[in-house]
């Protein structure tokens, strides 16, 4: 077998540029598959990390019927209210329910004005649970307390000059102007790898309510369920409760009750759909590549008719000639695939960096070794199979037809 590889490599080198051009189809196809699947994995990790919550016992409730753009829960026709939170808290399967308001605010620091997202921190008993739900910890300074007047805590990115948006890092003790009012920074949150947290301003609910005037409205209700087994029941209970409270029929809900798992599953389904679509496109490239290999091998067999005749005259069996061409076609596929894997992984690597930069996630490049090995084997086989017919033609050649030419 080693000899067939040696012979095959001789003819691959002989064809020079033509060999490289033939590899192109397989190369592009495999590079596309590898980069997009790697990128997709990175994107999936990035999306998953955006949730930033490790517990799966949280149900999110928000109103539907959006009529404008803004953070979740804003611009809805019929918002949730504080009484909804109280009612949900009373359900048997629920451990606690926390109202959250998310507002777009103007923030000013270092003579720079930016739009940012401000999130309310509930007061009283809910405050501790809020921090626990979201697993929030201070990286610098401390978390907010109920007694804090005109004080805020900021996401991690504000402590970095290049990410803060103010062209200057913010430190504990600095003053920041939000919607025209001055707020003292008492803490910077630990990095979460998600823009939902790392680019957020958090202030006590009373202040944000006063600042933005949303009254009793609530954007999102985060509900913690007593046990993971009760997730489905709790979801149904909340839906039933809100249908009654909002006077809507089943199937016509103007609110949404979602579990993190369901939301992630939906997002992952979308990502999988995109990946499948791209893999189909890449497959077309691979098929074109395979046709290219078959074409090159057919031409090659014709071109080296004489060499085949000579080899047969000096003792090569039909099977020797067949395997030599077969391996040669396989090698073309293999080399195309290997180059595709290298380039695809590089694209995947830089793509992941770009995604991390754009959405503030911290997804790492995940090299899928099974994908790589199966791509290599697959590329070899695609090449080899494409070369079967030309190889058979080569093997059947009669040496006496060419030896005296």
């Amino acid at each position, binding site marked *: 077998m080693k000899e067939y590889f040696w012979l095959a490599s001789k003819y691959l080198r002989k064809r020079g540029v033509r060999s490289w051009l033939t590899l192109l189809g397989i190369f592009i196809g495999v590079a596309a598959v590898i980069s997009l699947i790697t990128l997709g994995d990175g994107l999936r990790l990035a999306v998953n990390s955006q949730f930033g919550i490790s517990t799966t016992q949280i149900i999110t409730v928000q109103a539907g019927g959006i009529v404008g753009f803004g953070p979740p829960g804003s611009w809805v026709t019929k918002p949730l209210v504080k009484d909804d939170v109280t009612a949900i808290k009373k359900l048997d399967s629920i451990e606690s329910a926390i109202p959250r308001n998310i507002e777009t605010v103007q923030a000013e620091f270092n003579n720079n004005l930016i739009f940012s997202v401000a999130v309310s921190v509930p007061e009283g008993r809910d405050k501790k649970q809020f921090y626990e739900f979201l697993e929030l910890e201070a990286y610098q300074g401390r978390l907010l307390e109920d007694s804090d007047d005109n004080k805020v805590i900021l996401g991690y990115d504000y402590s970095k000059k290049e990410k803060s948006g103010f062209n200057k890092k913010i430190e504990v003790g600095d003053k920041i102007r939000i919607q025209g009012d001055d707020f003292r920074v008492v803490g910077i949150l630990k990095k979460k790898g998600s823009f939902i947290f790392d680019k957020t301003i958090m202030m006590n609910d009373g202040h944000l309510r006063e600042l933005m005037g949303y009254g009793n409205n609530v954007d999102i209700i985060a509900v913690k369920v007593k046990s993971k087994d009760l997730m489905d029941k709790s979801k149904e209970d909340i839906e039933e409760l809100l249908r009654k409270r909002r006077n809507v029929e089943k199937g016509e809900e103007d609110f949404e009750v979602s579990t993190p798992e369901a939301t992630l599953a939906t997002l992952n389904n979308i990502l999988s759909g995109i990946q499948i679509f791209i893999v189909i496109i890449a497959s077309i490239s691979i098929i074109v590549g395979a046709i290219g290999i078959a074409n090159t091998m057919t031409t090659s067999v014709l071109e080296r008719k004489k060499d085949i005749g*000579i080899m047969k*005259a000096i*003792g090569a*069996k039909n*099977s020797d000639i067949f395997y030599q061409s077969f391996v040669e076609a396989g090698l073309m596929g293999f080399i195309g695939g290997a180059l595709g894997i290298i380039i695809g992984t590089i694209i995947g690597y830089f793509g992941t960096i770009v995604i991390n930069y754009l959405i503030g996630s911290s997804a790492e490049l995940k090299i899928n070794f099974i994908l790589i090995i199966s791509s290599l084997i697959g590329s070899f086989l695609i090449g080899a199979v494409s070369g079967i017919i030309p190889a058979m033609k080569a093997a059947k050649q009669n*040496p*006496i037809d060419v030896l005296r030419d």
Partner: protein
Amino acid sequence: MKEVIKLKGVFKIYFEGEENEVRALSDINLEINKGEFVAIMGPSGSGKSTGMNLIGSLDIPTRGKVFLEGKDISSLEESDLAQLRGKKIGFIFQQFNLISNMTALENVMLPMMFQGVKEHERLNKAESLLKLINLENRMDHYPRQLSGGEQQRVAIARALANDPEVILADEPTGNLDSKTGEIVMKFLNQLHKQGKTIIIVTHDKNLALKHSQIIYWLKDGQIQRVNRKSGTKR
């Protein structure tokens, strides 16, 4: 004397039974013994090449039998035929027929590869053969970097690679000048003296008369006459 090749009532007919039927060989009977230097002569279209193909087991007869060392090879499968000729027959062609993308050394190693000889043995044998024909300094040269005479010497080394019983040379000097042709023939004579059976197919009467012990004259696909040098036993 031990018989190496025997053609018995051999016919080679192309397009048999069709309008354009060609009888390349008709009822050929010949025997070549071990250690003989034989020339097959004849004008173009006389059937020399067809005869060479049959003797060299590159082709099988339409009718009749071809024996190689007593074994009937007329009905062998292509793969068995290939193995047999790789082992028993060394070919030398008018056009040298070296593989252009292989060095002299690799060309000589090639027949051994098809016989499953181990790599280090192939290498040692090929090097010693190239030394034998005084091409030790040209081992890593490609055919395009060699003169015609050097290419034909590489072809001789390649023909000897599997230490075959028979060397079958088709117009071995046809593409060489007379001086280089003489060098090539000198090597063939040396091999003959070492006990190899040499068969040359040629239309060069002087060459055949000078070097061979037996000459088969072919015309219109039939053996017209056989000349034997005095002292040649049969």
